[in-house]
């Protein structure tokens, strides 16, 4: 294969890699918006790894500069998501609160800077949600 043909092939590969990465990202965020990320995310990880793999192959085959940029992006995205899946498990310490327990007394500042105390809750049921952060 001539150099030009290789570079053409490589460039196309770069854009295929980018397309796989972006389609998977779009599907991933669609699942997030529906609060429906599946328990088994193996297929997502496989898709991202394929995107990253195609990106790497792009550089091996040789590519024009814009194919290289597409491939680099695919490698970045394809590596980041499996990494985020790997660090996502959560676990509490030995003695968290359980159903049937009485909640502890606590106080904290609210977003207006006012002091909130758990005694303010008396009188009605409450839904308490702990979350990591708005980001």
């Amino acid at each position, binding site marked *: 294969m001539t150099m030009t043909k290789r570079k053409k092939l490589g460039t196309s590969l770069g854009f295929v890699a980018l397309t796989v990465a972006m389609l998977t990202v779009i599907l991933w965020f669609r699942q997030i918006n529906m609060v429906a990320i599946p328990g088994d995310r193996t297929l997502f990880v496989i898709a991202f790894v394929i995107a990253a793999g195609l990106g790497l192959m792009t550089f091996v085959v040789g590519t024009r500069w814009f194919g290289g940029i597409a491939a680099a992006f695919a490698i970045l995205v394809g590596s980041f998501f499996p990494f985020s899946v790997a660090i996502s498990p959560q676990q509490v310490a030995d003695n968290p609160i359980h159903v049937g327990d009485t909640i502890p007394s606590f106080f904290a500042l609210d977003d207006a800077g006012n002091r909130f105390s758990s005694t303010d809750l008396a009188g009605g049921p409450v839904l308490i949600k702990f979350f990591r*952060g708005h980001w």
Partner: protein
Amino acid sequence: MQVLTISTDKPEVIRKKRRMHGLQARMLSDRDLAVTDAFGLRNQLIHSGPLEDDLEALPVPTTLLVSSSGEVLWMDLADNYQRRSGPEVVLVALETHLNAP
């Protein structure tokens, strides 16, 4: 029905974001994880938060339904921060525990 949220966001961040989502809830800032630790909900596994933050840990995403006497009636503890129970799970819990005779 009161709703209380607890996160490690600074109060001013909560204030800013509240305007975007408009949630009618009392939203607390738990920077030092004092409330998180009082409930025993500090995540023990890999800490992954924004790089610019100096937090050493985050709470495990958890939803609790608490009765008027302070008893935990139902709770949903995430085993993974990418997977959360949808709103329908909370609604079922509310119907089950608050409407029961």
